[in-house]
């Protein structure tokens, strides 16, 4: 072991955390190198001095001052919390009023179903070769305007003005 290695590992040597082989190496180096031995002794003595410094105690009023500060901190936290709760309640109230107002305005603008103008439902004559019906009756195939779902069309079909295609065909063939 050289002096450089010794200095690098000295902190672990002082703390007695070196593995066995390295510890022996350090001890052997101490016997061989006066400079490192002197440095080791100086460090250990100074640490002894420092570790034995008398401990300082808190002053007599430390606890009472701390208690005052803790009480003030508790009070400040409570006020902050109640302030936050009030702000949250106010935000919720304002948001609710705005939403209700928006809903109210929207409802006024909505047209009732009887105001809706429906596209006429056009009945088309069936193709030739279709099964003849027992009673001569206009055959109607409901045509659904593009984009309207079947169930909505079924509901609205009653209200839609109906033209029978057979009448129109009759009119055109004459």
């Amino acid at each position, binding site marked *: 072991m050289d002096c450089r290695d010794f*200095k690098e590992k*000295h902190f*672990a040597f002082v703390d007695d955390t070196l593995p066995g082989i390295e510890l022996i190496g350090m001890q052997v180096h101490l016997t061989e190198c006066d400079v490192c031995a002197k440095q080791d002794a*100086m460090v250990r003595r100074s640490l002894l*001095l*420092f570790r034995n410094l008398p401990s300082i105690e808190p002053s007599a009023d430390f606890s009472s*001052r*701390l208690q005052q500060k803790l009480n003030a901190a508790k009070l400040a936290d409570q006020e902050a919390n109640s302030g936050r709760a009030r702000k949250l309640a106010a935000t919720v109230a304002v948001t609710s009023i705005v939403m209700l107002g928006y809903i109210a305005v929207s409802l006024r603008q909505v047209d009732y179903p009887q105001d809706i103008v429906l596209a006429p439902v056009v009945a088309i004559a069936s193709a030739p070769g279709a099964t003849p019906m027992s009673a001569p009756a206009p055959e109607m195939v409901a045509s659904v305007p593009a984009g309207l779902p079947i169930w909505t069309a079924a509901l609205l079909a009653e209200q839609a003005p109906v033209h029978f295609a057979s009448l129109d065909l009759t009119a055109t063939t004459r």
Partner: protein
Amino acid sequence: MASIARKQAVQPGANVREQLKAMDDSAVVTAFLGGEERAFSELVERYQTRLLNFIYRTIGDREKAEDLVQEVFIRVYRHLHRFDRSKKFSTWAYTIASNLAKNELRNRSRNPLVLFQTVQKNWQDDDRPLQFEDTTSRPDDMYRKRHLREIVEESVAKLPEHHRNVFILRELEGKSYEEIAEITDCNLGTVKSRLNRARNSFAEIVAPYMK
């Protein structure tokens, strides 16, 4: 904890305090978060002196050190509900203390007036007349011994801040390298390197006074 106190017929308060003293830090923290206010006093009692010595040795001002220790406890009180109980409470408390001490030193270096006032306070302490307790000993030896404590404290103060921190945590507080790494937010290699340098520097500064 509070229910245990209620069940006791004689001196319930004392019994609770004794139970708290027997608990480890984690259990005391749990008791406090469960509603036992006296548990916080137990934490204060356990750490006030240690934190005071740590901060005082770091910043060199006893009055300010007490203020900072109180600030540590206030922050602990406010944030204990967020503390990760799988970690060591002492490491957390020392981390807060270390950061407060660092901030104090940083503020001093920026404010020459604060630095001057601190130095002036120390001058006043040196105005005391020397008293020789033992007339058979050489006066200069007595002087050196009497002021050895101040010399040791001044020598520590001469260490660079990041060395001093590690040095105090290891030599005075007995913290492990891993704990020091966590408290100072450094890696293990850095802690070991700083400790090694701090020890050698301190030994060189103090050596002339130890002859």
